[in-house]
Structure formats: structure tokens, C-alpha cells
């Protein structure tokens, strides 16, 4: 039940894009087409789960015992950057189909703040390893849900009559505002 709560809080209530505003740069860039947004969400789910596991282990088994917590920013970002490289090599060799689906988004993800934010937040919330895993799964599913929905909406926006000055990014932000409003409705769901 507790794990379920963590998952849903990360998935809907504290949605990383619409409520917490993390990883927005890539959000507006990538969500212009449905295919690219699916590739991006696959890459995020994959990288986020693995990198939050590895950074949790590094933090609790290396940084804490040696009192090096102040190095966490530098250590996490280097860990994530090198993990992405490793994962790219592995996927290219072992699961080429998935690698093709993710395309260019896999290397780009290094600079996606969501990955680093989840690693930090799992530590700030003092989660155990299992809780941190469930949390990062919830966050990445929430990310995928929103980015894919948003891509479908933007597809429709191309045909809609939009006021002249609002074409392009401004109307995308208005759309995001409405979606964010809808997600606010999940607050206190399941008594969380």
C-alpha cells in the first residue's frame, strides 16, 4: 500500500512535468510529433530507472560512509552521463529495435534534468532502495503519459484557428496550463 501510494503520488499527483516543472525544455521541443514523444518516453523510463538505482547505491555505499555528501552533484551528473553512454552501447548491440525506437533521444537525455532530479529527490525523501525504484518508475510513467497526450493535442492544434500572436509556443503553454489544471484535480486522491 505504501509503495502504491509512492507510485501514484509520483505518477499523477506530483506529476514531474505539469506540477513540479522539471524537464520542461525537452518537453516543448520533443512533443511536436507523436513518434518522437514515444521514443523520448521509452528512453526516459529506461534511463531513469537504471540511473536512479545506480546513484542510490553510489550515494549510500560510497558517499555516506566516507562523509562525501557534498560531492553528490558532481558525482551524480558524471554517473548519469557515463551510464547513458554504456546503455547506448549495450542497447545498440543487444536490443537494436529498442535502440532504433529511442533514436537520438538517448544521448540527449544526459542533459534532461528529470533524471538528475529523481536521483536527488529519492535521497531527499530518504527512500529505501525499493521505494526509490517505485518512485522513479512512477515519475517516468507520469512523464510518458503527459508527453504522449501533449503530442496528440499539439497535432490537433495545427489545424485549429489560433489568435495571431499566440501561434507556436504561446498556445503550447496555454495547453500545458489547462492540462496542469486538470492534474491539480488529483490532489488528495486516495487521501495522499
Amino acid at each position, binding site marked *: 500500500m505504501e509503495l502504491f501510494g509512492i507510485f501514484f503520488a509520483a505518477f499523477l499527483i506530483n506529476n514531474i512535468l*505539469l*506540477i*513540479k*516543472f*522539471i*524537464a*520542461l*525544455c525537452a518537453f*516543448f*521541443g520533443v512533443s511536436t510529433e507523436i513518434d518522437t514523444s514515444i521514443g523520448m518516453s521509452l528512453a526516459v523510463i529506461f534511463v531513469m530507472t537504471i540511473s536512479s538505482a545506480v546513484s542510490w547505491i553510489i550515494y549510500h555505499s560510497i558517499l555516506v560512509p566516507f562523509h562525501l555528501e*557534498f*560531492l*553528490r*552533484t*558532481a558525482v551524480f*551528473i*558524471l554517473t548519469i*552521463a557515463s551510464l547513458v553512454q554504456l546503455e547506448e552501447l549495450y542497447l545498440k548491440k543487444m536490443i537494436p529495435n529498442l535502440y532504433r525506437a529511442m533514436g537520438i533521444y538517448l544521448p540527449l537525455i544526459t*542533459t*534532461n*534534468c528529470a533524471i*538528475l*532530479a529523481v536521483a*536527488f*529527490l529519492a535521497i*531527499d525523501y530518504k527512500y529505501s532502495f525499493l521505494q526509490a525504484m517505485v518512485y522513479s518508475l512512477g515519475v517516468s510513467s507520469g512523464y510518458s503519459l503527459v508527453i504522449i497526450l501533449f503530442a496528440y493535442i499539439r497535432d490537433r492544434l495545427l489545424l485549429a484557428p489560433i*489568435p*495571431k*500572436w*499566440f*501561434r*507556436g*509556443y*504561446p*498556445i*503550447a*503553454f*496555454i495547453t*500545458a*496550463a*489547462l492540462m*496542469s*489544471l486538470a492534474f*491539480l484535480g488529483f490532489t488528495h486522491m486516495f487521501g495522499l
Partner: protein
Amino acid sequence: MSIWRDFNQGIVRENPVLRLMIGLCPVLAVSNSAINALGMSVAVMFVLVCSNTVVALIRKIVPDQIRIPIFIIIISTFVTICDYLMQALYPVLYIQLGVFVPLIVVNCIILGRAEAFAYRNPVLNSALDGLGMSLGFALALVSIGVIRELLGAGGVFGFTLYSPAIAATIMVLPPGAFITISFLMAWLNKLEGKTQ
């Protein structure tokens, strides 16, 4: 003359937030009050000016292939300094800004300026470029913060101007951030008289 241009291009013409659409995450997340927006702007300014200066200082001895990891280490050093300084000096602000202080390390503006400007230009120009870009960032961030606090909480910088009971609370909630930035961008489009 060119030094002046390096300084002021980031403020309006290449405003990182409203023009180049980079560094959006902190802009939307911490702009729910003017004070938070100002605190975040100062933190970004510190990191950007310092990292631009150091990158420009060592640009001749950095091997081309490993420049990105080196930039990241420089940036994360300054972010860590900023993180601990803020925790010690302004604990309340630090709690409000939360995870967004360590997240400055992945702010695209900072790595972007290191790569696009500081790696190719002398120290003084790079420092001024960092100052200009961060002023542009601060301008966008603080104006969004002021608008949201004014409409959503009935005051600016913590001073109450009218009763919060009649303020539009939605403006300080997450949707208000998207609405404010959207209208600011549309307004800039109108000023320029161009459509996208």
C-alpha cells in the same frame, strides 16, 4: 564596443528564457513569488559568471574531446558552493527553492554559454556575456514572479497590496506559471509584429 555588445545581447535580443526557450524549468517552478525568483536569479548569476570566467581562463589548455566533462565538473563545483552558501546564509529561501538549487547544474543556459561563448572568447568578454545572459534570465524570472505574486497572492516581495482573499490563487499554483509565460511571449510577438 564589442564588449558592450557581448554584455547586452543576452538581456533582450537573445533573452535566454523568452527568446531561446532554454532554462525553463526553474523559471516556471520558482516564480511563484518575487523573492524566490530573485533568489534563483542571483544563484544562477553567480554560477554562470564564475563558470564562464573559469572556462575562458583554461580554454587554451583543455583538450577538445573531453571539454564537455570538464565544463560539467567546473559547473558542478560552483553549484555545490552556491548550494552550501545558500543553505548557510538563507535557510528559508533554500527550503523554498528545494531541488532546483542543485539542478542549476543541468540548466541548459550555463552549459550552453560555456560551450558557445566562453570556450571561444577571452576572459573579460566571457564574464560580461555571463553577466548579460544572467541579467536577461533574471529579468524574465523576476517579472514572471512579480506578475504571479501580484495576481495570485495580492502583493509583491511579501508586501500585501490588497486582500489575498480576492486574489486569483490559480496564479501562484502551477497552471499560473504556464499562463503567465504564454501571455508574456505572445506580448513579445506582438511587439515585434511577427508570427511564428
